[in-house]
Each structure stands twice: as C-alpha cells, then as structure tokens.
C-alpha cells in the first residue's frame, strides 16, 4: 500500500508535472500517439470494413486476417519493426496501427451488417443507389457499432502506447520504464495510474458520444 500512497504523492507533486520530461508533456505525447494511431488505423480500416459490410464480399478474409493480427505480440512487433526502420516513433506507430485496425474493421463491418436487410431493401426500392444506401442508411444506423470499434481500438492503443518509450520515443512509457529499471516503483505506479486515468477519460468520452448518438438517432 505504501507504494500506492507514494505514487499518488508523485502524481500530486506539481514538480513531477513540469519540465520537458514531466508528466504533463509525456501525457500530451501519449495522447498524440494515440490520436495519430487511431487516425491512421481509421483511414485504413473504416473504408475496408464498410465495404466488407456493404457488399458482404471478403468477409471471411476480414474475419480471419484480423483474428490472426490480433494474436501478434505488440512488443515483438515493435522490436521487429524498429530493426528495419530504426528507433523513434515509426516502429511503435506501425505496431499501434496493427493493434487498432482489427477492432475498427470489425466494428465497421458489424455495424453495417447490423442494419436489417428489410431496411436496406426499402431504401433500394425507393431508388437509392448503392452509395446512397451505404451513406444514408447503413452508416448512420450502424454508427453505434462503428464507434464501438473505434472505442475498443482507442482503449487498446492508449494502454499500449507506453511501449513507444521502448524504442526511444516519448509518452508515459518513459516514466514507466524509468521506474521499472531503477526499482522506483512509486514512479512506475504513478505512470500506470496516469495511463489508467487517460484511458478512463477517453472511454468516458466515447460512452458519452455513443449515448448522444443513440438519442439523436432515436435508438433508445
């Protein structure tokens, strides 16, 4: 318990938040890595997932490949990538994208598929083109699940972004590794708590936006 109390002392000390290596800067870096990984992953996974859900083609491939990719150990992937691209943010970013894509992809195709065939048939019967069905019917109705996929991905990336520090980048992993290596367990715990808080806040944002959406869409 003493470590836990000490960890909160570290977090409550304004000293540890200031400066170029303080918690403040590291937390912003951490958020930035998370956001960047999500933007890249969404740019890849959303179009693919929506098309898979809309056309029903390549579904088996999407399910199997995302399942396989999920089994990759992230630290191993970072190390492997860093051996090719060198240290810095590139290698961990590759790993974070690999981590985030399956969730977003699954959310996207599951979201589109969740729309009842009767609804899409009605849309088609009214003369909507394939694109119109996707953009005006399937995406809006599937949005809660699509955002659910983004929410899962965010949670995974924000919790894993500590590994960026393994190969010379920043983020809250810096404090975590420093604490680990120097047996400074209060510092390590403080960094962990900071990551947990970040994850809770981000998740709460998603929860809020999902509720808002359901209300707007009249799904509640």
């Amino acid at each position: 318990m003493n470590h836990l109390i000490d960890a909160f002392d570290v977090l409550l000390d304004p000293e540890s938040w200031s400066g170029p290596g303080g918690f403040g800067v590291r937390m912003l870096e951490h958020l930035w890595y998370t956001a960047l990984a999500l933007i890249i992953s969404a740019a890849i996974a959303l179009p693919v997932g929506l098309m898979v859900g809309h056309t029903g083609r390549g579904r088996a491939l999407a399910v199997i490949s995302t399942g396989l990719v999920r089994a990759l150990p992230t630290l191993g992937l970072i190390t492997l990538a860093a051996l090719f691209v060198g240290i810095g943010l590139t290698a961990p970013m590759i790993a974070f994208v690999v981590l985030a894509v399956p969730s977003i992809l699954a959310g996207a195709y599951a979201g589109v598929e969740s729309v009842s065939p009767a609804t899409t048939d009605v849309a088609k019967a009214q003369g909507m083109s394939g694109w119109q069905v996707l953009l005006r019917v399937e995406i809006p109705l599937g949005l809660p699940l699509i955002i659910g996929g983004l929410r899962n991905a965010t949670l995974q990336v924000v919790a894993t972004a500590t590994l960026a520090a393994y190969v010379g980048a920043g983020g809250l992993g810096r404090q975590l590794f420093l604490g680990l290596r120097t047996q400074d367990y209060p510092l390590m715990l403080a960094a962990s708590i900071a990551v947990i808080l970040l994850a809770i806040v981000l998740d709460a944002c998603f929860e809020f936006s999902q509720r808002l959406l359901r209300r707007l869409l009249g799904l509640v």
Partner: protein
Amino acid sequence: MRMYPAACAGIALLTLSACGGGDPLETDDDAATDDGDSAELVIGSQQYYSNTIIAEIYAQVLENEGHEVQREFEIGQREVYIPELESGAIDVFPEYTGNLAAYLDPDIDSGDPDSVHADLQEVLPEGLETLDYADATDQDSYVVTAEFAEENDLTTVADLAEVDEDLSIAANSEFETRPYGIGGLSETYGVELTLVPVEDSGGPLTLGALLDGDVEVANIYSADPAIEDNDLVILEDTESLVLPQNVVPVVSENVDDEARAALNEVQNVLDQQALLDINAHSQSTQDSPADVAQWWLEDQGMLD
C-alpha cells in the same frame, strides 16, 4: 531442435567420463570426494546466455577434475539466488565483481578492478568467498563508431567533451539516474549527453540506433560481440565511472582447494578476447551453452 540430442550426448559423455575419473568409493586419495558426505557441487547461473556458458565452463572443468556437479542454471535475479548461495544450496556461481558488490552494499564506491574486488570481500556474506577475478569484464561501456572516433579524435570518455555538436546516447532509461549515466558523465568528465532511451540493454535496437546515426554514443556491454563485428570503439573510462564488472566465481565452503585451483586456472585465461570469442561463437552457432563451453575448453586444451 536438432541440437538437443547432440547436447544431451555431450552431457552424458561428460558425466560418464567424470564418473570414471573420480568414483568416491574406489579412490581414497581423491581429496575432492573424500571429505564431507556429499561431494556434489551445485553450480548456478544467471538468466543470461553468456553467464550460463561461463557456469557451464566451470561445471565441465570441475567434472574434468573428477567432481560431481549438479547444474541449476538460468536462475533469474540476485534477489533469488544470493539467498540460495548463503543457505548453501548453491556452491559455485559466476558473478561480476561490481554488480555483486553493489547489490550487497549499494553505497560501494567505483574504482579499478583490484579495489572493487577487494571491496567485494568486505561485503560478502559469511561462508561465501570469491576466487580470482578474470580480466574479462561484462560491463556498461560507452561506445562510438570507428568513423566518429576518428573524425573527432576520440579515445577516452573525456574526449567527448571536446566534440563541438549536440551529442545523444542510446541506453536503457535507468541511464537517466545511474551514477555512470547522464549526471555522472557531466560531473566527472564535463560531457553533456542527451539520453535517447532504448530499452533493450545494448541489444540490436541500441546498436541499430548507433549505426543509423540516430545517436552518436551507445551504451553497450563490453562483452558484446557486436562491438567487434561492427568495428565499434569503446571509449576508455579513465575515471572508473562505470563500476568494473570482472567475471568472478562466488564459491561456498563446500568447494575444496583442489576445485578452487581448477576454477582459478579458468579465471587466469579468461581475458576479454576470450569472453568475446565465447559470446561470438555462441551467437553465430546458436549451440547450447554446454557445447560452447566444451568447444572453448578443448580449444584451450583444458579438458583431458
């Protein structure tokens, strides 16, 4: 998987020859097996390939001398195996002078290998002793590429202070706070470095950062074959900022004089080049520690 049958056969052969050489029931002039009711010596090693090979070398030398040996290799951290040594559950353990001394007394001062070895004797728990330290070290060292050393005329760590550009060093994050880290370099040598933390303890990522030019200096262990393979230069630590880590066996009271003499013989030939050769051989062949140890001992003509 193919190496296992070979390794097993090797161990089996060694065990057989050891039994033939010193059966406690038949030979009465064998000091090793005469005194005490259990002459079996337990040898431990850290969870580190190079350390396990050294332990295996000790084991094979002792077996060659007719001792019975039990291997308890790949025990994790000092927190785990030091108590085992103190309790007498382990008799021989390859260690490194500085780290062991610092583990036993965190306030230990750095110095030359002799003084650190001497300080280590002061802090060793009762019943444990160290034998001669080898010239071979496995310690943190400040490494630069050959081109960079030549360009800036670098031979010692202090020379870094003369380099007229911002320098960064790739090392584990503890380099931030360790006495030999950023602060120590600044205080002792007036060398200002920026830390780029790479957490693989001088492994391929740290090496890559140095070779890619992401950093100018890297913290790589002195027994790492990568130093030779990549033509790297170890900057001389003239002020002994880094605690010397000479290879040294810790032994219990169960290890008799004859066994100690045999181990010291190994210690006397284990110089830096020998340790580098051993590690390089292990990494290039991927042989088991037993095979690597046997290869080296035969090469030295120490097995008969």
